[in-house]
């Protein structure tokens, strides 16, 4: 266990410096910057009756949660293991006396720090941009946006990193999952919605009693579960996915090709 923690820490530090200097980081920064820029545009140019809460709610729901969070997590998460395989540097780590799951944990943790940093700042920046309008933000809305961003970033990143443990092209599978499976299932009325991560993230984000959500044109707004329940479900999903990923990386062989 101590070996695992030590190796995880060392790989976390190695990956953190790597990820900070990568092109993916640049792409991730650009992605995270889009919602605040849009919020600023809307806050400046929207008609007078648009309230700050509506701006924050709409942008968080339609743009952040459904597009930015999954794409950013996909860009960052799919690289966790796959980058080492594609660059053929995984050999160095797998021939060192470290438990193999440390590779997943260390690199994932570094990636998560980046994802939290970007999505967290993005959420804060959207709230600040929306607050430029006259009027007050509903109580707890900014916190909900922040929490949904962080939790969404975490769960999606873990999911895509784990897919990368098992599949050679996690990016393609992740795209299919995000834009085909989730977009289709999460927007179909009925119980099947709860099979998606989106549904639970929406449950954290949306408070149907707040007026700002009325104008966001969200379907089935009353069908969401409570934030606590959603958080619990997502925590279980994240832990199970992580365990599956750790078991997978401990057993899998990676045949490196030119």
């Amino acid at each position, binding site marked *: 266990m101590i070996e695992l923690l030590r190796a995880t820490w060392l790989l976390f530090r190695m990956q953190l410096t790597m990820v900070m200097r990568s092109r993916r980081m640049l792409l991730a920064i650009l992605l995270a910057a889009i919602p605040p820029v849009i919020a600023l545009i809307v806050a400046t140019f929207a008609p007078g009756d648009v309230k700050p809460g509506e701006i924050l709610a709409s942008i968080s729901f339609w743009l952040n949660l459904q597009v930015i969070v999954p794409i950013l997590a996909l860009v960052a998460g799919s690289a966790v293991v796959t980058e080492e395989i594609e660059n053929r*540097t995984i050999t160095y780590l797998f*021939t*060192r006396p470290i438990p193999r799951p440390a590779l997943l944990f260390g690199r994932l943790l570094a990636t998560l720090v980046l994802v939290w940093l970007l999505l967290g700042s993005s959420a804060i920046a959207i709230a600040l941009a929306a607050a430029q309008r006259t009027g007050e933000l509903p109580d707890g809305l900014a916190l909900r946006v922040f929490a949904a961003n962080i939790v969404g970033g975490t769960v999606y990143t873990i999911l895509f990193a784990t897919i990368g443990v098992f599949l050679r092209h996690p990016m393609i599978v992740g795209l299919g999952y995000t834009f085909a499976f989730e977009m289709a299932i999460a927007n179909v009325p009925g119980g099947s919605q709860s099979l998606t991560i989106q549904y639970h993230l929406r449950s954290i984000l949306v408070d149907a009693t707040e007026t700002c959500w009325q104008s966001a044109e969200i379907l089935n707004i009353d069908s969401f579960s409570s934030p606590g329940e959603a958080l619990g479900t997502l925590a279980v999903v994240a832990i199970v996915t992580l365990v599956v990923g750790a078991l997978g990386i401990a057993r899998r062989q990676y045949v490196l090709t030119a």
Partner: protein
Amino acid sequence: MSAIIVAKDVGRWYGEVVGLSDLSVSIEGGVTGLVGPNGAGKSTFMKLLVGEIRPSRGALTVLGETPFANLRLYRRIGFCPQQDALYDHMRGREFVAALVRLYGFSAKESNRLAIRALERVHLEDAMERKVGEYSKGMRQRTRLAQAIAHGPELLVVDEPLSGLDPVARHETLELFKELGEAGTHVLLSSHVLHEVQSLTQEIVLIHRGRLLAQGSVGDVRRLLSRHPRRVRLTVREPRRLAEAFLRFDHVGAIRFHDDDGLDVETRDVETFFKDLPALATELGVGIKSLESPDADLEAIFDYLVG
């Protein structure tokens, strides 16, 4: 000496492609060359040895341990892979030190070991530069440095000489000799046969995933009795000597070349070399030079691989 690597009926295939097929081999300590043409299965065998992949069938032990995900074994071995892959954004010293730290050394100790290893591969002047700026030869030497830095008992090196200039090749071969003399077991693969031969006489020859020959170069050559051994002589009076050779049963063919050259094919090279001095003295033909061009690894390789 006991075997450090034991493979029994080891097979490894990638889908329908056979990497290794029923390979049974036992390798003793010291410096050993793993030779074979491209695609013979050398790299597959090395990947199995360092536990990067598992055999599809058969059993394999390295230093008495099963390699795959074996942390105890990884402390005792060093692996220099063939692929030109490094963390390009890191400095040479940082790269080696970061990998050495994973053996459990402190930051300070890792740094010291990394510097020492980089000095051994003559990269001390470039170790503060980014690896991405290195030439192909420097990258190869960096890979080697990370494999030797922690002082492994067994060093597994896949094509270590490719991409190196002649001076660096010489230095690298010298390094392997030093390591071998210091008690490190070295297994290196190459298809540049004369370089392997200049380092060691012990070879394992594989072809199409199968073991073709194993042992010292001389022993293997002796086993190839169906191929008569060629001996090239330069003598003052080649025709007189040729006439005398015809009396020997084991001499199969004689060819003249230039004015004083003579190629003799014999099926019993030991008897030939035993009788030759007496014969030359008796006839007074004056032997100027003597060589056996098909006794080297290259010729053995040609015979076996065809």
